[in-house]
């Protein structure tokens, strides 16, 4: 069931004939030339060769693959959302009002005082948070001195990369035997060179860092700041807030926690929240109520939603000591619209229920799975060990059972890790189906696993060939027989 490349269906090379002088133009352009019915079939077929959340369970640990409510697509597609950023504030009260509302929602949910919606993804949020920390230390005259960022060994790879991108030394903190932060090791690592400690909580093993208050104290005593990686926020909605735990900066992954679609890799959005002392450093612009409006703040709706006034209630402003910009304009707006709509749909109770059901689902699924789960009590995700089996092969074999496998081989503290996050959207039947797949694979021999998958669109794909004989475009395929 091979679907030809567009270029294999029909290509045409056209001469470029333009009103511009010839020396400013190219000579010709060769690209696929197909009509709409052919394209409709091409992409329909490609879609049928792809697995999404609407196809079945997708318990990819650390990725929070929630159901994406359809109505959020509709509101993001409204003509009134299709605006250019470079218009007057007065003419953009709808957009600014929504952004202001989302800033408030996120601040409440995270226990933060101020939020920037600009970072276009989680990693961009991390980088933004680090820039804010850097600006803070610089403002305190400690910019040069504080050149280290502490990151637990079990942290997301982006934490390390974002710290490095910002020019910091990364100090890797080994986990304790219980899979959590080792307080003694942290004390040893923290110093007057510490700019920031980045932590996710629950951590990547799904464990809540019970010592979070001591952790915060240790870092703050050393003069550092505490950063919350929002990847696992789904476990805490309405249950606990990073701000209440002593975190100074955090990012939110709206494509995880707030159910905006993952889109095959993106776009997401990674808003950053901070405590009040750091608000002055957030990226520019942010949105606020206009001063003449702010005085009437007692009239604000109870849920923080904006209200219109004739003069326009909202305006953009640059925080006093802003780090500047982390996106050319103002981030992934359409994604933010969907996140806002999701939060406005669920409300307090829906959000809290999402966390509860996510945690219940992870615990129930783990109880039905034969693989050992070394660390508990876990929350929204658990990391099982494939034991003597190769976790990557386990994943391939699970494909044959019609489900998406968990994240594999990470975090490394669990040998042959199967990092599993079912989220709240799965019912018992689906979890049982998932458990059956796990347990069937658990009994199978290595050869069966190594030869998997067999029932998928493609059989096992040769990664070595892809990397050794690089073919990154159809132009590079010439002479390469199908």
């Amino acid at each position, binding site marked *: 069931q091979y679907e030809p490349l567009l270029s294999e269906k029909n290509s045409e090379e056209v001469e470029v004939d333009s009103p511009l002088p010839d020396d400013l133009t190219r000579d010709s352009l060769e690209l696929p030339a197909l009509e709409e019915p052919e394209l409709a079939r091409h992409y329909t077929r490609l879609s049928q060769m792809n697995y999404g959340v609407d196809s079945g369970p997708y318990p990819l640990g650390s990725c929070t693959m929630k159901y994406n409510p359809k109505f959020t697509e509709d509101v993001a597609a409204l003509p009134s959302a299709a605006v250019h950023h470079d218009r007057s504030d007065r003419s953009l009260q709808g957009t600014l009002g929504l952004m202001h509302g989302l800033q408030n929602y996120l601040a409440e949910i995270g226990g933060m005082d101020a939020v920037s919606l600009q970072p276009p993804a989680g990693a961009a949020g991390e980088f933004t948070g680090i820039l804010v920390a850097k600006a803070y230390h610089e403002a305190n005259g400690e910019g040069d001195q504080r050149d280290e960022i502490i990151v637990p060994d079990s942290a997301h790879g982006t934490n390390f990369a974002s710290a490095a991108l910002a020019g910091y030394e990364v100090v890797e903190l080994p986990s304790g035997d219980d899979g959590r932060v080792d307080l003694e090791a942290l004390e040893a690592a923290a110093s007057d060179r510490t700019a920031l400690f980045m932590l996710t909580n629950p951590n990547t093993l799904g464990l809540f860092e019970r010592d979070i208050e001591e952790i915060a104290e240790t870092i703050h005593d050393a003069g550092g700041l505490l950063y919350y990686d929002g990847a696992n926020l789904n476990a805490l909605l309405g249950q606990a807030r990073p701000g209440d735990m002593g975190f100074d900066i955090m990012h939110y992954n709206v494509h995880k926690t707030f159910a905006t679609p993952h889109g095959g890799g993106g776009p997401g959005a990674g808003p950053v929240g901070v405590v009040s002392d750091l608000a002055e450093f957030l990226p520019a612009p942010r949105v606020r109520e206009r001063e003449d409006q702010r005085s009437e703040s007692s009239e604000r709706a109870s849920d923080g939603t904006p209200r219109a006034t004739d003069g326009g209630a909202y305006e953009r402003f640059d925080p006093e000591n802003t780090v500047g910009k982390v996106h050319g304009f103002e981030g992934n707006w359409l994604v933010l619209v969907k996140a806002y709509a999701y939060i406005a*749909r669920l409300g307090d109770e829906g959000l809290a229920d999402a966390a509860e059901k996510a945690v219940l689902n992870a615990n129930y699924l783990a109880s039905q799975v034969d693989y050992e789960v070394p660390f508990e009590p876990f929350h929204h995700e658990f990391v099982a060990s494939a034991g003597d089996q190769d976790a990557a092969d386990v994943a391939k074999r699970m494909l044959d059972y019609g489900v998406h496998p968990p994240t594999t081989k990470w975090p490394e503290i669990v040998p042959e890790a199967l990092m599993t996050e079912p989220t709240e959207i799965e019912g*018992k039947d689906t979890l049982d189906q998932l458990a059956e797949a796990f347990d069937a694979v658990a009994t199978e021999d290595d050869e069966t696993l190594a030869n998997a998958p067999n029932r998928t669109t493609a059989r096992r794909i040769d990664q070595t060939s*892809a990397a050794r004989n690089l073919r990154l475009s159809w132009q590079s395929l010439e002479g390469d027989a199908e």
Partner: protein
Amino acid sequence: MSGRHESGDRGSPYAPHTADETAAMLDAVGADDVTELFDIPESVAFDGEFGIEARSEREAERHVRGLLSRNDDLTEFLGRGHYEHYVPSLVDHLSLRSEFLTSYTQYQPEITQGFLQALFEYQSMLVELTGLDIVNASMYDHATALAEAALLAARVRSTDGDRVLVPDYLLDQRKDVLENYTDGAGLSVETFATDDGNADADALAEAIDDDAVMVYAENPTTRGTVEEGLAEIGALADDHDALFCLGSDPVALSILQEPASVGADVVVGDAAALGLPTAYGMGLGLFACREDFVRQVPGRLVGASEDAADKRTYTLTLQTREQHIRRERATSNICTNQAWVALRTAIHAAYLGPDGLVDLANDCVRLADDLAGRLDDVTGLRAPVHDRHHFREFVVHTDQPANAVVEDLEAEGFAVHAVGEHEVQVCITDANEHAADRLVAAFEEVA
């Protein structure tokens, strides 16, 4: 069931648990209540309220619609890095297919061949448009792609150096992102002068030295002019072992000089000029470069391979460049990217085909030329300010203060940029050309 949660007041409408199921699941894990499963110390537990009201889908939809309806219904003649072309309906219908939309990164290529092939096709079309061999599967936007280009330049350059040279027409916002991204690597961003809207090769020749790791130019420029000295800029960069990075977009690339032919080592830009409507600046970071740099490329790459049945397949490749494997030594911190926008861009480009792309690009030249001519005829205006060829947009001199002109035009239902005390900038494409007559009339009214 849905009905039970319609008003959202009993939990998440997207969690399907019946009371019986919840009870059975709690029983299986040996808990009486779901709260027992949380291991959160009481001292940090949250027992407050966010104060966010739950809404039915209908109420939520009406609420967001109501909010957004407070945006004025202006006809926009805006560009400066964020462009609108008519997006064919096909793009929406196909990209919204849930198998695409609700999937994530293709960590399991055996069940995600569809998206991988679509990204491979995206990469390939941009290879043709840029003339460069490597295109990644997306960055966030033009600005972050530019910043990543500078970091790549610093990595691949054989000798030390810390200067990134950019023309003074570079958008402030992009320059700011560039500085933020490159500060950690110790680079400094310096501006060289422009000449009548184009990069000034003489100024660059004076500014450049062997400490330059990268030279940047745009085509078309932020002010809408078509660059005429690209080959010269490319040669200057080459002379000093600096990378030449060119900013553009897929519509412009359909007719303008092929970047590879003028010595570009990297091409960045916003590819969402195809695929997305105006989206408050949301974009798609195009990143293309020469084959030499393939192991230093930031972001994801889709490559062809074979499966166990020896069939052509596609997969993410060279993942050891990426943060989830290489961590602090990764080529970038990017993880979640703009893949779905790249899918849309690919569909849009394929819909147009080579003829359609060339026609659309030519329209961008003709429409700008025509509108500039008509505005030049309006008393109180002079257009275009630059004696150059233009693409989509151009700067207009206004005898009145530009801010007043912009404000008055807004009252007439139009949005244009103020770009100087007596300069406004106007952008015209297939998406707003139907309103050109009315815009000219409005200018006549207010100029």
